[in-house]
């Protein structure tokens, strides 16, 4: 049995990601051809729109990556504990609502306090939003996949109602809030670009999460519960419910922060369709990143580039941006498929190890 040792997990994941991307881009090229478009033109436009220049990369790609980073980290953390939080989208929206509300209400607070209060509110709101499915899971045994998805709709429509009702701009024309005061805005990170402090916050958060997972007792318990709740309880005397409670709330809080950072860092107001499905894209980001914070940073920027390139593709090559949604979906399928193949090659899909 000594020969049956798996290669390093990190390398495995990296290869998997690379394979998925290659497979996907190949398939996308074929689809574009079938659709009557020129794949080379599309690729050129995509590259130009995402990494064509320093400013494009920083002001568009990285800016697009910020909410994906937060939401991706939120999803990755939950998934590592075996908590299938599909609710990042809703948590993001209520986080944005709470952040904007604080920023619009407590305008007398001095800058650093106002921005801190706004972001804290979005963290709390995201956590509270996750609390509902958490309690339903732990107390009533209702699967969180369903409840988090349903809570998304509640969150999305709550935000929509806010911008049509209580928080609508004073002019009352558009479904959006007033713009928040300067004191409530995140400072820019690199002057002359649109990149704001939120990006740095996300990187710090990724570092903290990586450290927690690797080095701390709680992180170890989280991984144990995610890998096998039964073994965590029996061999480790870990209470899986406690770990799930903390992780689920933390995941919701981080997703809420995604919304708070977006409105205080970029849009300075809440819109009805603030998120372009980031909470769902975050699932692909997390999976493709191997559920590791470092991996999420890479894949979030990759998806940010995809979305940035989509705009350019539409403008310059006349290819609908919806094609990028197709590419994203293909990435997810490729990752899932390759992961299964890898599992099958290891021969453990039917409990055949060591027979």
């Amino acid at each position, binding site marked *: *049995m*000594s*020969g*049956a*040792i*798996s290669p390093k997990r990190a390398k495995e994941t990296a290869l998997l990601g690379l394979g998925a991307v290659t497979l996907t881009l190949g398939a996308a090229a074929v689809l574009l051809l079938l659709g009557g478009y020129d794949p080379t033109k599309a690729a050129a436009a995509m590259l130009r729109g995402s990494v064509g220049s320093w400013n494009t990369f920083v002001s568009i790609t990285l800016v697009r990556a910020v909410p994906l980073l937060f939401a991706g980290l939120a999803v990755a953390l939950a998934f590592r504990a075996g908590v299938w939080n599909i609710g990042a989208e809703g948590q993001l929206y209520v986080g944005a609502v709470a952040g904007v509300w604080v920023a619009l209400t407590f305008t007398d607070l001095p800058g650093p306090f106002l921005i801190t209060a706004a972001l804290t509110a979005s963290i709390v709101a995201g956590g509270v939003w996750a609390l509902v499915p958490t309690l339903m899971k732990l107390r009533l045994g209702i699967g969180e996949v369903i409840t988090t998805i349903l809570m998304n709709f509640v969150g999305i429509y709550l935000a929509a109602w806010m911008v049509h009702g209580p928080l609508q701009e004073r002019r009352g024309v558009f479904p959006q809030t007033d713009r928040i005061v300067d004191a409530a805005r995140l400072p820019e990170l690199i002057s002359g670009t649109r990149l704001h402090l939120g990006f740095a916050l996300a990187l710090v958060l990724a570092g903290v999460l990586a450290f927690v997972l690797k*080095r*701390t*007792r*709680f*992180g*170890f318990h989280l*991984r*144990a519960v995610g*890998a*096998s709740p*039964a*073994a*965590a*309880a*029996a*061999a*480790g*005397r870990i209470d899986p419910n406690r770990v799930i409670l903390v992780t689920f709330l933390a995941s919701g809080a981080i997703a809420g922060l995604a919304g708070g950072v977006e409105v205080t860092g970029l849009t300075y107001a809440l819109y009805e369709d603030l998120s372009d499905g980031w909470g769902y894209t975050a699932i692909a980001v997390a999976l493709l990143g191997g559920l590791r914070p470092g991996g999420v940073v890479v894949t979030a920027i990759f998806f940010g580039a995809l979305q940035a390139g989509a705009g350019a593709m539409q403008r310059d090559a006349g290819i609908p941006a919806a094609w990028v949604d197709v590419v994203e979906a293909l990435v997810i399928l490729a990752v899932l498929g390759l992961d299964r193949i890898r599992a099958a*090659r*290891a*021969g*453990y899909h*039917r*409990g*055949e*190890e*060591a*027979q």
Partner: protein
Amino acid sequence: MSQPLVRLRSIDRRFGLIQALSGADLDLYPGEVHGVLGANGAGKSTLLNVLGGLVSPDSGGIEVGGALVKLRSPRDAWSLGIGLVHQHFTLVPALSVRDNLRLGLRGRSFSEAGAAVEATMARTGLRVPLETNVSELGVGDRQRTEILKALLRDPQVLVLDEPTAVLTPEEADGLFALLRDLAREGRAVALVAHKLDEVLAVSDRLTVLRTGRTAMTAPRSQVSVRKLVAKMLGDGVADEVAIGEQAGPSSDAVVAGNAQVSGGASVASLSTARGGTVVASLVAVHADSLKGVQLEVRAGEVRGIAGVEGNGQHDLALVLSGRKSPSLGRADIPKEVAFIPQDRHAEGLVADFDLTENVALALSRMEEFGPSVMMPWGVLRDEAERIRTRFEVVAPSTETRARFLSGGNQQRVIIGRELALNAPMLVAENPTRGLDVAAAAYVHGELLKLAAEGVAIVLISTDLDEVLGLADSVSVMTKGRIVEVSEAQKTREGVGALMLGGGEVSK
């Protein structure tokens, strides 16, 4: 001899990096019970799965009735009259036992199928609660259902992988008698069981696999037990096994298959069990399936608890080891209890964790590590390395994932880890299930050594020979209660009767 019903010729099969079979042969003749023997990882299950159409070989030939065939699925195998009773269960949990049995008889009317079920149950003496959902069954009943399902389709060749692991001795004997009857009717039966004496008692011919190759095929009457074990473990290993087992009186006792009985009893009598202080006591404990359990465990004794699967043993193990609190009654147990759960894969280890992480699972809660927020990975790595060396875990390093260890080596990791806790009591639940002779002997040796050092051992097992062989005092669990076994009743038959008396079998 007549023509074989089935002939497997130099079968190769690889799973990833593991060469499960390399040139394995097997002939099955009408009228024979054919025992397939081998150590863990020798390829027994894979070979049977090839026969049952679950695994397709990379190369090699399968002949059925003289004709070369391909078995792409269990359905192919069934259509040729080959029925496999799988080691893992293949029942639909949400359906009743009756419906599961009917599933195997598609094409027949409900009443016809029902009658066939009743008739087969009567003929075979295998009793199962027909109206219960499979999800609510214990493992024993599931196993019986699985066997019935195969028999209902009247196979010419019946293949059984570990059918007796969860049956009572009496039921196992019944099953063997049934297998003999089936052979007498001109069918062929192929059987894998870890307990050597069972296979020897029932088989006409034997095939020994070693590292995926057929090491020997011979009529039962022409081979000695000693030779078989030598073939299974590699020539010259038989003696080593005997030495490996703690204080095993002679190598013959070990290889005799019921080694645990003779080998264990002599050691047990050496230990000064009776006078130890009480380490744990349960008073009128209720918890889920436990219905008022009384139990006292003393330092240095091996307390054996026998019983048919699903009579509350698992809850007892959890309560005794502090993993579950009683809903009623009192449980005085040590703060730390070493625990060998029955399911290595699900409860003992995290398959995707490496050795260090699996060791950390238990050790990181030790007091010497304090209430620290951080994981002391350096210390834990050293500890894992020490366990790997001291318990001779076959793994290239402490970074090897538990998934890639054989069952015996997984159990070594668990034992090493739990011993490092230095707990005053150890609860072991079916600690040798699925292990081969050598690995089981090793586990038994470690348990007895611990008892001799003064640790209280609670051995919960469905393997009656194991309990009788190792334990100083024996109790039986039935329906969530504990029945003490008197010295006079401490026999296979006596305890077996108690196990069945209040067992899980309804009706």
